[in-house]
């Protein structure tokens, strides 16, 4: 009987084994790369907005406090997005004819809200609360980055659970004095570890239960 496989078949068999392994490794690597790339995390990807609102100009340039617009950040789970009226406190006087601001003026005139694109978004099964973080000394910058340096808003961190847990496991690395929470310029001191430990006990941060599922998921 003639041979079924020619000598070439050995090479094909060997290379396909290697090829499959390589393909699996490459596939895994590619998936991981995509998963952590800005394509899926949106990290550092400026989002287009109906009005190209610049935090850099308003915060860094004009020195407006975060809470002027995000009014409920200290009292509610939701920091609050300013209603059109808040824009109008200044823009009823300033740049009233600017075409860039037309959507804001239209919104007020027609009583229809401006639809912004959400930059920092969590999955629906996660219940994040701004008020408790702010009250326990988590600075705005810690999660949102140097907002005062962003001409257009982007996401500074992945907001993946792994990232949340970095802090929930060791909050002392991130805490700052309460009065510095809204300070964009505050930097960690050299002895952050000592300061953090102080703050953890001073603010009664229950580190033992911060990683309980029920803290964020209900």
């Amino acid at each position, binding site marked *: 009987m003639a041979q079924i496989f020619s000598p070439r078949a050995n090479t094909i068999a060997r290379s396909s084994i290697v090829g499959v392994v390589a393909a699996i490794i490459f596939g895994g690597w590619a998936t991981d790369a995509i998963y952590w790339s800005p394509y899926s995390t949106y990290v550092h990807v400026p989002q287009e907005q109906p009005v190209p609102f610049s935090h850099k100009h308003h915060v860094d340039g004009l020195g407006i406090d975060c809470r002027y617009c995000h009014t409920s950040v200290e009292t509610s789970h939701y920091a609050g*997005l300013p209603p059109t009226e808040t824009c109008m406190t200044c823009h009823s006087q300033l740049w009233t004819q600017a075409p860039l601001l037309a959507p804001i003026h239209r919104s007020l005139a027609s009583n229809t809200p401006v639809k912004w694109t959400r930059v920092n978004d969590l999955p629906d099964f996660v219940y994040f609360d701004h008020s408790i973080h702010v009250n326990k000394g988590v600075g705005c910058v810690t999660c949102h980055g140097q907002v005062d340096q962003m001409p257009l808003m982007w996401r500074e961190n992945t907001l993946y659970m792994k990232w949340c847990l970095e802090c929930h496991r060791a909050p002392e690395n991130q805490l700052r004095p309460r009065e510095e929470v809204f300070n964009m310029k505050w930097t960690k001191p050299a002895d952050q570890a000592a300061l953090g430990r102080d703050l953890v006990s001073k603010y009664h941060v229950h580190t033992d239960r911060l990683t309980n599922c029920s803290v964020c998921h*209900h």
Partner: protein
Amino acid sequence: MKADAPLDLDTIRQRLAGTRGRKYWRCLEEVAETPAFEEFLHREFPAGASEWGDEFSRRGFLQLMAASFALAGFSACTKQPLEKIVPYVRQPPELTPGKPLYFATALTLGGFAQGVVATSHEGRPTKIEGNPDHPVSLGATKVFTQAAVLDLYDPDRAQTVLRAGQPSDWNTFVSAMHAILQDQQTKAGTGIRILTGSTTSPTLQSQLNAFLHQYSAAKWHQWEPLSRDNIRDGAWQAFGEIVETQYAFDKADVILALDADFLFTHPSSLRYARNFAQRRRVKDAAGAKMSRLYAVEPTPTITGSMADHRLPVSSAEVEAIARSLAQKLGLEVEAAATPHEEWVAAVARDLQAHPGTGIVIAGETQPAAVHVLAHLINAKLNNSGQTITYTVPAEPVPVNQLTSLQTLIKDLQSGGVDLLIMMEGNPVFDTPADLGFAEAVAKAKTVVRLGFEENETSRYCHWHIPAAHALESWSDVCAFDGTVTLIQPLIEPLFEGKTAHELIDALFQPPGRNSYDIVRAYWQAQKWPNFEKTWRTALNDGVVAGSASPAQQVKLTAKAPSKTAQASGKLEILFRPDPSIWDGRFVNNGWLQELPRPISKLTWDNAALVSPVLAQREKLENGDVVTLKFGGRTLRAPVWIMPGQAENSVTLHLGYGRERTGRVGAGTGFNAYALRTSQALWSGAGLEIKRTGEKYPLVDTQKHHSVEGRDIVRSGTIGEFTANARFLEAHKEPRPERDVTLYHPDEFKYDGYKWGMSIDLNVCIGCNACTIACQAENNIAVVGKTQVANGREMHWIRVDAYFQGSLDNPEVNNQPVPCMHCENAPCELVCPVGATVHDDEGLNVQVYNRCIGTRYCSNNCPYKVRRFNFLEFNAGMTPVQKMVKNPDVTVRSRGVMEKCTYCTQRINAARITAEIANRKIRDGEIITACQAACPVEAIVFGDLNDPESRVVKLKGQPLDYWMLGELNTRPRTSYLAKLRNPNPEMKS
């Protein structure tokens, strides 16, 4: 489920008679040990529940699964979509974004107010709780009140003005009305009729008065299918005036309910349940006292299930018992023979031994004579003025509604009605069958109906105006005790809904005031001192201070009433409100439809309830379709064998069998109104019943989640309790020590908060309010009749009914069962993906995003409290339907296990508030949804590490027990055993 061999009721009887000690049973099949029940018991889910029911071959399934697995990895490749974020244009000043607002308002049932506090998330009502300041709700809710929020978002609501079934608009309607009214002006409105239900709205009354003043010959009629005519007539005959009777169950030692379901159907039932429970709760054995409740009733009710002695007799026999009692108490009444002389004599002695602290209450289903007898007895026993007071009725114009309806129908038949305006109601469906309302109403020239949904009556309407929901309306309403609540809206009408006020106002010139102006103008005219402040206080509190009806001094003028004529016939038919869909108005509400009815645990249908004796005599089984012949009318209905039903009484629950309703209610149940006549509004003799040989699939949950023959529910008597406080623990396995476990007993220290719950079976009345409150709070899906039959209902807290004793008159013990939050939780150990885990405060947490649906946890749960999303139960919801969801709770999708979380979202909210204020969570700060709804405060939640907390004190009581504690699950939910207070004179 496969077909059963016929139930042998004789064997069941023998088995029950042969039991020694307390033996609890849940359904007939259990006692009979039918193979189907055994199978139910031993499977985690009923047969077929875990499989897909379609015709689908195993091979095809495997092929598909292989493909699915191969592709499953890719499902994670979707990236998070970008979402829009929409702020206000002008943010309301009272609103903090993300924080709910609460509004005190009221919902109306049968004309009377249920005071509520409604939660609004950014203008979206999501949850209703009772208003603690309201004298009738006292912070609790009925099932109907809880479910009202689902009605608000019902996509089948009437949405637009219809003219002869075609879309029209409000302005066209108003002009059409004015054309008619102009014509009527010349004849003083002779041709105008208005039909409403019972109403207690002061504003609406003043509007009607003004209208009837302007059109002096116009007439106003009232009809409520569950009318309180007998109560009004009884008062009229007894006192010569119509007064309402107010009962103080908190002062009563001995109570006799004569077919009166005062714990559930009474307009003041929430208050009565709370007061009743006050006298049933016991603490320590020493000096423990309870009130005693006797119930005489033909069909099992919630009140009957709480009775210490329950006497099942036919409805017609109740009068004889009342007469016999009156006679024994020394009243001169025409006696009637009753075979229960001994029973009545014992009750009479008990009542006599407690003068001034007894209550005899007759139900609305009993004829006026029984009410007169009750008034006479209460006067004789000095109860009047003590436990019983009389007040001016909250209804401004109480009338005999049957007479009122009959007059209207006569006028309609004569063709003299040019304009009939109906406020809500469904008279074509729910008026007595012999009166022929449908034929009569067809003769009216113009028929207008203000209605929440299109129903059978809408077909006869020339104009159909969509009604606004109470949560969309300005109005006012009185509670049963007369206290006024201003109804305020939480949301603009979602559709074009109008209120009754706006409809009546549109009939005047110039029309166009909105409800707010109308209601406010009425109260402004009442000359409140400092109006603005009083108005705002009333809106804030949900009650107008000091508006309760004044007590009425009454003079008993009645001589003993003559006997009510009784039709002859062996079998008796009873008409009763459905415990879930009431008179039919809630038929399109999925939460209520799926709620297992108290005691019978039927869902999605009504049935003809028959006694075991009658079933044996007629060879009937559950689900057998019978022909019911009554008064020349026939109806086909499936039967349900009801333990405790009076031998010859057949109960039909009203409201089902709707021909025209929304998608939820369509095709459910059978129409009991078809047999209801003006002579037999509540009961009638002469029923004939005949088997057809057909079967109808009735679905009940009584068999679901049962736990075989174990020590689940515990009960005893107060005598046993005072003799030995720990009598229930005798012959029971002791609680195992904490470290008797293979796992790490000290893995969790619980040194912060330690959450726990206590459920008092002694006061639980089994009203289901907890189940539906939980459903509303926790976004629990409705699964539908077919899925309930598969055992896939999703309720996180169920109310189990355990029978004890004979088949014909068993005691009923209700037991609400939520997740026990075991410290040694069996579910946690078997989860392969760590989706069900413990937290540091002892919560047994279910993590939806980790769950892959193996269902091992459910398999290993001894309490059967875990629920699995077999299907995508939340699929296909319209944007309006989605608005009912609680934003603080994840909406679960297919393939995910879920269960009671102790309302962890409420715990977190309280924790955050407390932490920001730098303090501990106070006792009572976290109220779980079930706890909030409970009328009898049977459920208490709190911190077990706080020795002063209510829950710790309750768990320290001698009646406290763990369900299946011998398994060493160390449940955090524990129960207080049920006690009864039987009369030592009487046989149990």
